[in-house]
Each structure stands twice: as structure tokens, then as C-alpha cells.
């Protein structure tokens, strides 16, 4: 029997039971759509997170306390940060900054919001590539005088004042204490991952004394080191670790601090989001499996219903393979059409979710890769054949005499 013939015949047979065929297909549509949407959103989230990390700057190193390797870790101090600004022992270090911080309430005439308030050193805005929209940056004088001055992120200014300009000189309250606004940062837009738009910067010393008094011993949370260029990042890491090991009396491999480069953060985040994507895709894959079982179920019913037709076809000379392929073509047609619709549907879902995410300030560009589409197509086709095989085999094995006798 020719392939086009069995194709047309299978279509006719599916059309004869429109309701049943479309419901069966719905299982596959939902399954494939879920897989496509999950992979697209996962990949999109991965791209946007990695994009943000890369946007921080390729030369940046983060140094944090690491309690894993040592029994009595020494905390990172402001003096540690200052020691790294050493042209002799650390020639590849261009700039050093440090920060402490945490959530604090910021308020202005009744408006208030809880944001990240970071105490920073003057070079913080340099290493983070921050641009001041208006006003001035935090200086050594502010630091020395524990000045009550603050630089607002764009979103914070917007929330408190309803505008991002003309707020210099206003007084806001941070954790109940008055601070004078000396600058507003240019909006970075769209980003959410540690975005400066939602932060308030104050002098490190002021933060230690007034906002986060538990840190008054001169400890800092993070030291930022900017390497001279992306090529010298590795050298800078070596120099920084050597200086800090000396200061903390650490053995090699038993440091009480960890240095993360932007590349290692990218690697870490992409492996996390990668696992997440696979997990989501796997969960969605289960619904595709359920859809496949739906196909098997309906094909089994169809075989029973058409026993007499099968008997007739056998009497007319249909071989085992003819009957087998007839039912296989039908089941794979169901799943391939369902798979095609599912791809479209999944694309729509991911586009809508992407729009919603973007509208709520999380830049998410769903990525539907050719590989995901190919995989979904192949997989749904395989589901159709796999779950069609048993019913088709059952049909093909019917004895013509028995089949003809059935009513």
C-alpha cells in the first residue's frame, strides 16, 4: 500500500472522529507546549542573568569570607581592602572597593520602602561602572567624617520623590536617621539581579556606625577588585590571594576567603540555570508522556471498534504490515500534528510570559532554539510511534476469521 494512500486514509479516519482526535491531540499539544515554553523561558532566563553578570564588567573580582575550609576564619576588614591597593605587590589591581550592607527602610515624607543600603568606599562606583546622573560621588572626606550622605538608585528616587532629578539636597531617613541626598545614579534599566537601581549608597564608615551597627568592628561584606584588563584577571587573582593569605595566615588551599571572578559567576549561574531548565523541561516532559498514554488509550479503543473493518481488510488481502502501518500512521499523525500545534502554542506561552516578565522589570527574552523545536518534533513523533505500536500490533495480529465474526 502506498504511503500517500495510507496517509490520506489515516487523515480521513481521524477526521471521522473529530472530537476524539482533537482531545487526544490536546494531550500532546499541552505536553509539547509545556516542554517548548519551559526550555525557552529557561534559556531566556539564563541568557539574561549571564548578560547581567557580564554587564557588571569583565575585570571585576569579588572577595568574600569563606568559612568552609577553615575553623576560625578571620573576617574581611576594611584594612584588607586597603592593603590590596598596593602597586608593588599587586601591580595588576587597578581599583579596590569594599561594601557592607543589607536591607534597610528608606523614607521621605510618608513614602517609604525597604531597599538594599550599601555602605561603600569611594571607588565602589568606579569598579561597578556606575554613572551619577546628578550630584556627586562618595569621597574620602565623607568616609573620614562618617558623613550622613546618600546616593540614591534611580528606582529608589522614583519611589520616594516621584522623580529622578532635582532631589539633591533633600533629606531622607534611612533606618530612622536623616541623610542628605548628594547624588542620583543613572538608571541601568530592566535588570533585577543586584541592580543598582534599587540600592542606596552611603559611606562605608557611616553604614558601619549608624545603619548596621553590628558590623562596627571594621568588617566588610565584600571587597571588589578591578583588574587592569581582562587578560590580567588571573594575575590579579594570584596577587590578591597571596596578599590576603599573608594577612590572614592561611595555607594555600585553606583560605578563609574566596575570590570569585565574573567568569566563575557566569559559569556558576549558567550551571544553576541549566539544571533548572533541564528540571523544568523534564517536568514538562512528563505531561508529554501522559499525552502519549492518551494516544495509546484511544488507539486501543479504535482497534476494538474497528475489528470488523480490520477483518474485512485482511479478507481483501491486507498483510500484517499493511494493518500495522495503517494504525501507526494514524497514531504518529496524531502526535506529529499535536506536536506542531504544541510548538506554536509553546511559543505563544513563552512570548506572553516574556512580555509579563519584561513588564514587571525582569528582562526575559524567551529563546526557542532550533534544537528545542527539532527535539519536540522528534520526541512527539517517537511518542506516537511508541505508544501506537502496541495497539497497531494488536490490530495486525487479529485473525481474519475472528475479526469478521465480530459485530
Amino acid at each position, binding site marked *: *500500500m502506498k504511503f500517500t494512500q495510507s496517509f490520506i486514509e489515516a487523515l480521513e479516519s481521524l477526521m*471521522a472522529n473529530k472530537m476524539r482526535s482533537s482531545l487526544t491531540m490536546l494531550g500532546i499539544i499541552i505536553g509539547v507546549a509545556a516542554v517548548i515554553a519551559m526550555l525557552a523561558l529557561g534559556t531566556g532566563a539564563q541568557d539574561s542573568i549571564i548578560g547581567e553578570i557580564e554587564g557588571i564588567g569583565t575585570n571585576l573580582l569579588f572577595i568574600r569570607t569563606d568559612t568552609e575550609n577553615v575553623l576560625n576564619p578571620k573576617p574581611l576588614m576594611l584594612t584588607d581592602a586597603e592593603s590590596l591597593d598596593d602597586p608593588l605587590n599587586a601591580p595588576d589591581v587597578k581599583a579596590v572597593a569594599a561594601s557592607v550592607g543589607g536591607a534597610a527602610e528608606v523614607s521621605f515624607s510618608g513614602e517609604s520602602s525597604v531597599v538594599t543600603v550599601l555602605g561603600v568606599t569611594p571607588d565602589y562606583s568606579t569598579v561597578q561602572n556606575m554613572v551619577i546622573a546628578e550630584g556627586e560621588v562618595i569621597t574620602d572626606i565623607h568616609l573620614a567624617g562618617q558623613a550622613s550622605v546618600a546616593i540614591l538608585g534611580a528606582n529608589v528616587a522614583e519611589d520616594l520623590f516621584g522623580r529622578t532629578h532635582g532631589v539633591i539636597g533633600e533629606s531622607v531617613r534611612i533606618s530612622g536617621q536623616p541623610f542628605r541626598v548628594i547624588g542620583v545614579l543613572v538608571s541601568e534599566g530592566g535588570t533585577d539581579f543586584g541592580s543598582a537601581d534599587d540600592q542606596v549608597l552611603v559611606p562605608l564608615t557611616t553604614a558601619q556606625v549608624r545603619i548596621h551597627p553590628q558590623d562596627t568592628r571594621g568588617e566588610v561584606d565584600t571587597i571588589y577588585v578591578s583588574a587592569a584588563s581582562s587578560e590580567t584577571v588571573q594575575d590579579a587573582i594570584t596577587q590578591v590571594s597571596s596578599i590576603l593569605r599573608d594577612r590572614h595566615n592561611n595555607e594555600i588551599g585553606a583560605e578563609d576567603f574566596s575570590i570569585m571572578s565574573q567568569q566563575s559567576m557566569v559559569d556558576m549561574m549558567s550551571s544553576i540555570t541549566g539544571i533548572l531548565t533541564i528540571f523544568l523541561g523534564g517536568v514538562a516532559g512528563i505531561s508529554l508522556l501522559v499525552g502519549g498514554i492518551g494516544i495509546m488509550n484511544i488507539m486501543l479503543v479504535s482497534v476494538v471498534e474497528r475489528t470488523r473493518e480490520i477483518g474485512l481488510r485482511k479478507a*481483501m*488481502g*491486507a*498483510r500484517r504490515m499493511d494493518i500495522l502501518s495503517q494504525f501507526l500512521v494514524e497514531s504518529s499523525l496524531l502526535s506529529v500534528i499535536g506536536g506542531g500545534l504544541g510548538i506554536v502554542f509553546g511559543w505563544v506561552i513563552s512570548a506572553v510570559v516574556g512580555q509579563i516578565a519584561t513588564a514587571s522589570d525582569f528582562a526575559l527574552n524567551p529563546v526557542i532554539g532550533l534544537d528545542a523545536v527539532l527535539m519536540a518534533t522528534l520526541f512527539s513523533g517517537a511518542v506516537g510511534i511508541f505508544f501506537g505500536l502496541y495497539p497497531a500490533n494488536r490490530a495486525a495480529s487479529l485473525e481474519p476469521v475472528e475479526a469478521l465474526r465480530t459485530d
Partner: protein
Amino acid sequence: MNNTTVVAAKNLTKVYKMGEMEVHALRGLNAEIQRGEVVSIMGPSGSGKSTLMNMLGCLDRPTSGEYYLDGESVADMDDDQLADIRNRKVGFVFQGFNLLPRSTAITNVELPLRYGNANNGRSRREAAIEALNSVGLGDRLDHRPNELSGGQQQRVAIARALVNNPSIIMADEPTGNLDSKSGEEIMDLLLNLNKERGTTLIIVTHDPEIAELTQRVINIRDGVVEAKL
């Protein structure tokens, strides 16, 4: 057996196992049918009549014995070979017509050609039209079974049985589901086809009036051919 013998059954037995019990449906049956004959097979229910029809139509294999259809030994063929010989040498006409309900008359008639080999689409359609013309349904090519009367449906079934130019046409109670007028027309048609085309006809029936229209009656009782009176 000579070259005019189309059906030759020798010592056919068929044993069905029903759980522990063995049912002997055929007990060493012998029969010969010549080319161009019109034969009816009669017998009470349980006589082995249906079993014999299944054997002669190559729908089933005998437990033992030999069966030659148009010179080919059928008894030890496998399923696909049986399918092939049914396709080439046997045309079936059933009591309940057994047409594909969603397909047009012409598609139904094309069905056996589809499972045969070496047929291109064009000659297939032509053969189907010719077969439908010969049963007087040349103007009903694109009608579906539910748009045709019972007699017309049975004509489509006969056209389908004819279309491969089979060696025998097996008709199982062909008039059983029809009113007497349509039944007569169908019998006339079958007998005419025999006259005009020399088609060998085997009609399974329990209606003596039908049997009377045939040239020879084979009476089956207890799995063997009843001795002629």
C-alpha cells in the same frame, strides 16, 4: 485434479480447541469445484459449513489435509502468503455487505487493488469503474454506503469481489440482509456474472430457494460432505 478444477479439498480436518475440549469442525472433508461452476454449500448450523467457507476462502488453515486453490497448495502457507492468495484469487461477498462506511463506492471497490502489487493509481481507478459498471452502479461512483440502498450496497460489494478477477467468488448468505426483491436482483446479478464472465461462484446459504438456482449443492453434515441421495 485437472486444469479445470479450481477448488480441490482433500481430507480436510479442522480442530478447534475450546479450553480442554476439542471441537472437530471438519472431519476429513473432500470436495472439488470446477472452473465456471455455480455451487451452493448447505448445511445446518454447527455442520462445519462456516469452517469450510473459511478454509475455501483461505481465511484459515486446515488442521490437516490438503487444499489446492487454482493449483496452489494453501494448507501450509503463512499468514502473509494467505493474505496474498486471498487478494489474488478470492472475492468475498458477505451477508452484511462489509463496506467501509466512510469511503465512497469507488474507494471501496479499489480496496483489494490497494493491497495487491503492481497497480498504479490510474489503472486502479479504471478497474474499479469497470467493475462498478458491470454491476450497474456506474452512476453511483462517489456515493457512500449510507447513501445507497441495501441492494446497491451489495452490488458495490460484488464489484469489490470482482475487481481483482479472482478464481472464485465466495458469497456468504449474500441475500440474507435483503428484501426478497433485492435478493432476487442480487442472485440474478451473480448468476449473470457467472454466465458472462465464467466466474466460479460458491454460495453459502441455508435457503433452499437460493440453492435451487445453483448448478450443484454440496451438503455438509458433521464436518463431512453428505452422500448424495
